């Protein structure tokens, strides 16, 4: 693992972000970041961004809650149904995650890190659900469309990040960092 000591702007390394949209935003932020006094160590890992992690988690729960509102709680008043659907979505999202994780655990070598494979698997299920609900004639199609829209925007951002990858590498290298001994 790479560590950067005493450089606060290293928090904006695109390589500390996972999704292309966040990587791109971090790239722009890094370009204008100033070095401030900082006593600490910044770890470089693609899942290190708190903002990204919490935003994506909240986005998934709220979108799933919309789907549940029009299915499980279809006969309820929408505000009440949505309020009930949020905690159900919070717990329910674990079902496909664990099911997919179990299958991947069975096929992967013992003790292997399968977080990336499971991420792809769960995200594909999420987009499949969006594709299904996008065709429904109710308001839920807007919730599904925003998922598809953000997916497309992420793909575009991914292409931009690819084109600026050399500049990203130059910026990150200029700030520095050392590889952990352990």
């Amino acid at each position, binding site marked *: *693992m790479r*560590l950067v000591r005493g450089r606060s702007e290293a*928090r904006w390394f695109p390589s500390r972000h*996972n*999704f292309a949209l966040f990587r791109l935003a971090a790239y722009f932020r890094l370009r204008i970041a100033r070095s401030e006094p*900082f*006593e*600490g*160590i*910044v*770890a470089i*890992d693609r*899942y*290190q961004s*708190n903002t*990204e*992690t*919490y935003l*994506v*988690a909240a986005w*998934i*729960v709220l979108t799933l809650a919309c789907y549940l509102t029009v299915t499980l709680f279809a006969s309820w008043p929408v505000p009440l149904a949505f309020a009930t659907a949020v905690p159900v979505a*919070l*717990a329910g*999202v*674990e079902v496909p*995650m664990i099911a997919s*994780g179990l299958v*991947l*655990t069975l096929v992967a070598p013992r*003790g*292997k*890190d*399968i*977080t990336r494979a*499971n*991420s792809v698997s*769960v*995200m594909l299920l999420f987009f499949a659900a969006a594709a299904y609900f996008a065709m429904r004639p109710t308001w839920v199609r807007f919730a599904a469309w925003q998922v598809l829209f953000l997916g497309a925007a992420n793909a575009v951002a991914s292409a931009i990040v690819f084109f600026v990858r050399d500049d990203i590498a130059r910026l990150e290298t200029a700030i520095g960092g050392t590889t*952990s*001994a*352990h």
Partner: protein
Amino acid sequence: MSRVSAVLYHPRVSWFRRFLVHGVFWRQVLRWAVLMVPLWLEPLVMALWAFLFLLWGPGRRGVMRNLTAVVPGSTAVGNFFRTYRVFWNFAWTIADDVRFKEMRIGPDWEFAGSEHFEELQSREGGAIILTAHMGNYNLGAHLFAEISDRRIVMVRAPETDPQTREYEEELHGRTAADGLKVGFSTRASDLAFDLLEAVQRGEIVAIQGDRVTPGISGLPASLFGKRTQLPAGPFALAMAARVPIYPLFIVRLGRRRYRLIVSKPFEVTRTRDRAEAFDRAMQVWTRELEAVVRQGWFQWFTFEPYSEELAA
């Protein structure tokens, strides 16, 4: 062995033991989850597990009772929700610990009192780090081994369950950093000579000083206005080896963010009256401990009432 233990460790029912609170099953589930959960779903998993921890009655009640002393004027309802926050932080820290061990992915660190930390690293001769069950003790020791050339000996209470102990020892053996050694404080006398030798060799010994486990000798202390016992070992070791004690705390600031707080060192000077020397040192320690725990009550992982006055 108590009657309950005799039943639990009977071969016919021992398979069941793994599912108890301290059983190995939960460690295995945690490891599997760390290697499986998509990282952007992690907050949701933590929220659910923190809620499940609330179902653990003795732990929940222990935290709630401690909070009545740590947060003066707090109500039972308020402390119930505060306990959720304690479990939320606990879930994150144990996951961070396993992630570091299995995947070598660590958090961001901030330092407070870095002048004392630099002094600790650069001083010749041994020293004692006195810390608490806060934030992430294990990660802190690994960080120290990572950024320092000094060898650190970490003392911790052993797991009560034999299978869990075996599992943790195997995991530690497989994943420990070069400069880090773990000693288990099964009995006060077992480790004492090893630790004294280590400190005299110039090594740094890290001990948790906020909880007395069975078999460990304690000293009387007052914490948040309640009488309690805190471990005598670190103070006796400091006095015998004539080395300073550095209060050090690993405080969780947020997801994958920790702060290392190092306070001014103090010594346990040898005098004719040992009890008085210990008492003085204990007062310094409890002052430091209270200040940090009062600010970070949501990550003081003490799941049993720390004082008999609270247990009553």
